[in-house]
């Protein structure tokens, strides 16, 4: 019998969809009992949000001092402690989950299975290596498993009609050697890149920060999130949180339209689960066309205004 504990990620107000995707992955293990653990200094309200996730039995609501709940040092020991009652501990493969889960694994004396993309059975999973150029099937012979769930590989589980029981806990961890200072965020009004159904993405072909306005305007026109290639972020055309690819965000929107992106392998890794990939580039030989469902060779500075008019 599998008992699965999932680390819930949140921003203080809402539960991150990566959590619901981890629930979807957990449901694929036969007969699994699924619980969540959520940490916050104001845990009652976020625990209510967590309890609305369908298919969750119990939410462990761990009251944790201000800012400590954002830090691996503040919460990993408590997760490892709760894990004694579970066969599996999952976290979303977001920067939050990637930071914390290996600490949990180390505390439990285990290797972590990173970025699960497919569940074969309770102890066997598939995950990508070499930037997605190969896929391995991994089996864990141990009694316990710690893993992160590649969010682009799983659908979002229902987040509104659940009714999990909330169980309260304290977190007596008073570590003070890691201190949260601040989070600088673009605070975009646009949909969240990681979970948006549509994404408009720009690359080096945009040529400047000013020209990136074209991407923002087109995104707003069709209600899309905005993304970028590493080259565009490195060139300073847009902020780092827009980067899509091996070391940026791995996304799976229904529609991914990219402009002026040649399609480096590191970028393709981040989009290969997208429903429909549309590529617009002036170089028809670009590798992006190898993965595009619809390709148009042309000057983006002419194509985008025409799209603004016709979409």
């Amino acid at each position, binding site marked *: 019998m599998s008992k699965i504990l999932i680390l819930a990620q949140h*921003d203080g107000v809402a539960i991150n969809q990566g959590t619901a995707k981890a629930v979807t992955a957990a449901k694929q293990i036969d007969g699994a009992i699924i619980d969540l653990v959520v940490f916050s200094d104001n845990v009652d309200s976020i625990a209510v949000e967590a309890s609305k996730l369908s298919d969750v039995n119990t939410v462990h609501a761990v009251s944790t001092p201000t800012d400590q709940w*954002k830090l*691996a*040092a503040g919460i*990993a020991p408590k997760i490892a402690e709760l894990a004694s009652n579970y066969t599996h501990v999952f976290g979303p493969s*977001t*920067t939050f989950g*990637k*930071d*914390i889960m*290996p*600490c949990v*694994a*180390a505390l439990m004396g285990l*290797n*972590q299975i*990173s970025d699960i993309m497919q569940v074969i059975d309770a102890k066997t999973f598939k995950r*990508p290596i*070499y930037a997605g*150029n*190969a*896929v*391995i*099937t*991994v*089996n*864990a012979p*141990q009694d316990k498993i710690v893993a992160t769930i590649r969010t682009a590989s799983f659908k979002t589980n229902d987040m509104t009609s659940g009714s999990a029981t909330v169980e309260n806990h304290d977190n007596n961890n008073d570590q*003070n*050697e*890691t*201190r*949260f*200072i601040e*989070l*600088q*965020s*673009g605070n975009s009004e646009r949909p969240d890149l*990681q979970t948006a159904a*549509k994404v408009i993405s720009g690359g080096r072909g945009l040529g400047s920060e000013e020209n990136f306005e074209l991407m923002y305007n087109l995104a707003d026109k*069709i209600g899309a999130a905005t993304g970028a290639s*590493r080259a565009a*972020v490195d060139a300073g055309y847009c902020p*780092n*949180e827009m980067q899509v690819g*091996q*070391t940026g*965000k791995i996304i799976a929107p*229904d*529609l991914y339209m990219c402009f002026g992106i040649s399609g480096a392998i590191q970028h393709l890794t981040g989009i*290969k689960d997208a*429903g429909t*990939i549309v590529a617009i580039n002036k170089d028809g030989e670009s590798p992006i*066309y190898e993965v595009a*469902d619809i390709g*148009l060779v042309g000057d983006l500075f002419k*194509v985008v205004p*025409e799209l603004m008019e*016709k*979409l």
Partner: protein
Amino acid sequence: MKILVAIKRVVDYNVRVQVKPDGSGVATDGVKMSINPFDEIAIEEALRIKEAGKASEVIVVSIGPNTAQQQLRTALAMGADSAILIESDVEIQSLKAATSLLNIVEKEQPGLVIMGKQAIDDDNNQTPQMLATLWKRPQATFVSKLEVNETTALATREVDAGLETIEVTLPAVISTDLRLNEPRFVKLPDIMKAKRKPLDIISIADTLNGFNDNELSIQKYESPQPREKGIMVESVDELVSLLKEKGLV
């Protein structure tokens, strides 16, 4: 203060790896090998901290086959002072790597350990966090800016929501992200000089103190499912009508 930098020998990032037809691994025979790019950034950052007068010594360590001496020599040519090869003929997993590195950390007592956030072969993204946990010291992962002071370090981390800044008390483990710096090129005289720098080789068994193997088993390697071949359109009108047909806009 000493800085310890951990590096890994991996298939060069420009190589498009192929899965062997029998599914037993990826083809690495005759393939170009390099320092994991994130680890190269870690070396560069350590050297810059030393050059700024905030560290006295940079030690570079790698776990890998005997041939990983090449990557350690490159690190020495970049400017590291000494190198340690923890020799292992077989691939090892993250927890064993962290355990082995901890052994070196306990001997060398560095003020900072810097390493790449992930190796581009197994893409695991675990060893720095595991080392910090086993060492019971703070971690700052995915760092794109680092300011080292006497007893603390201020680290800016690339996170999904933007840029997060945390302060850690030293000693600490830092894992590097791509935008932290641009590694220097190695010059020929430095390569010659690096040949005379100390490089110790020790066996991994001597670093593990009876560590209990809890390894995952890799059952099969396969190529990813290719996407279906797409179509090319000639005009924006054609594109727009296709998108509307599919109900995407």
